[in-house]
């Protein structure tokens, strides 16, 4: 027994020491690399269109982003459509899926408008708006702040008199009709001609494929539209027209992104306010309940007191 003990002590102590050392090290690493918010959720949320429409079955874009991060399908967002699904599939390294039609179909951007003559001022639409874009007070006419509206159509259902219309938003897109032309033969004449050293033929392929990211990386913005490449092209391709279309598409995308960011902030503020109101309401209710309880207790104790008094007087009565 005594011989076994030291033989056992050494390995146990050694492994214990090893484990303790490693545990301390891991603890330090965990402390150093603590996560504050989930970066995956933030990145997914950036790609969602921020309409806060709730078509996906979640109350807004951020909740859907959290659900996606936890493994939900990426094809539940009708306003984002195919473009959003492609971006998410690339980001998350999953297969691209067609849009799930049970959550809605992809539509052009819309905006809500109230037929103001018919509005009865019920104010039911105001809490329904996820970005607080409806202005008005009870018993007065409401109106939609068009620049804030994300076109989610959540206000349409609560309206009792159906005075809210969803109107398609016109997009000013300078579309140049490209005439039929011969295919690019990669002759390279345009490269020598370009005064700002971009590769006109590569840029043409990127623009024709609608690959805006590639076009940006090929310095689309540097093109001064001098039309020199057009003039030398043996296939008579209207190159500059393609670049102009890509530039306007890029501008629209940028505008949409800015709008999405804005809507995201408004949604978060709306959510915050809603929560605060709920908490206040909860507190008031609690206070009222407490008050009622106290009153009840007081009353019952008073009753008991009175009953005791009566009993005592009755007891004392015959004795005296």
């Amino acid at each position, binding site marked *: 027994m005594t011989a076994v003990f030291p033989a056992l002590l050494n*390995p146990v102590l*050694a492994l214990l020491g090893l*484990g303790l050392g*490693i545990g301390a090290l891991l603890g330090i690493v*965990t402390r150093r690399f603590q*996560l504050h918010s989930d970066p995956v959720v933030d990145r997914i949320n950036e790609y969602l269109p921020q309409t806060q429409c709730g078509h996906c079955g979640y109350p807004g874009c951020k909740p859907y982003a959290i659900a996606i991060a936890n493994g939900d399908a990426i094809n539940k967002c009708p306003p984002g459509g195919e473009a959003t699904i492609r971006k998410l599939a690339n980001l998350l390294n999953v297969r691209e899926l067609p849009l799930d039609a049970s959550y809605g179909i992809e539509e052009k951007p819309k905006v809500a408008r109230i037929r103001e003559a018919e509005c009865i001022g019920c104010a039911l639409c105001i809490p329904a708006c996820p970005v607080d874009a409806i202005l008005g007070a009870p018993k007065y006419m409401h109106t939609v702040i068009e620049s804030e509206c994300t076109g989610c159509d959540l206000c349409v259902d609560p309206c009792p008199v159906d005075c809210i219309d969803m109107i398609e938003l016109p997009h000013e897109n300078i579309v140049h009709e490209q005439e039929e032309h011969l295919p690019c033969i990669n002759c390279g004449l345009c490269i020598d001609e370009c005064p700002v050293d971009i590769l006109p033929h590569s840029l043409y392929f990127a623009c024709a494929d609608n690959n805006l990211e590639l076009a940006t990386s090929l310095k689309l913005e540097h093109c001064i539209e001098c039309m020199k490449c057009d003039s030398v092209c043996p296939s008579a391709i209207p190159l500059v027209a393609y670049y102009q279309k890509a530039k306007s598409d890029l501008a629209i995308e940028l505008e949409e992104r800015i709008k999405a960011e804005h809507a995201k902030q408004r949604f978060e503020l709306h959510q915050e306010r809603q929560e605060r109101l709920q908490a206040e309401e909860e507190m008031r209710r609690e206070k009222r309940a407490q008050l009622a309880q106290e009153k009840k207790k007081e009353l019952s104790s008073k009753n008991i007191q009175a009953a005791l008094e009566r009993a005592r007087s009755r007891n004392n009565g015959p004795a005296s």
Partner: protein
Amino acid sequence: MTEIFLILVGAILVNNFVLTQFLGLCPYMGVSGKVETAVGMSAATLFVLTLASACSYLVFHYLLVPLNLEYLRTISFIVVIAAVVSATELIMQKTSPFLYRILGIFLPLITSNCAVLGVALLNINQSNSFTGSVFYGFGAAVGFSLVLVLFSAMREKLDACDIPEPFQGPAIAMITAGLMSLAFMGFTGMVQ
């Protein structure tokens, strides 16, 4: 210098861990669907393997040998490897969350990747020096990465091919892996 070069060539090509010694087959079949995933897995394995072989060398020679506890090497190596993987996981979660997400379950699975334990144990068996062990681990990881990326590139090509129905999926992947292993047999005997 020559010694290190020989260790590297031996570990990468001649005694390739996956195709000659058949260690680390789980990620080899599991993460080879896409090239990007394979590259991510390779990077993680490269990091873990190099670090783990250095750590296990230190633990063996400065903790187990002085205490005459060489027989505990497997247990202590597993502990060390698990700790290295956990630390890598924590750091990666912060620094590159998307690689973390793509690797998913395979990152913790590096712990049970027998190539990692294999390298640590083989280092002891071959009585390599400290630099020798580090380069042996590095070479093993490079060899692993090489065949993993090659294999995933082939599988991506195979996805686009018209494969007879009974061979689709894992079956054709197994056949491809077998052919790759045969090809790597050509290196046998180049370096001891």
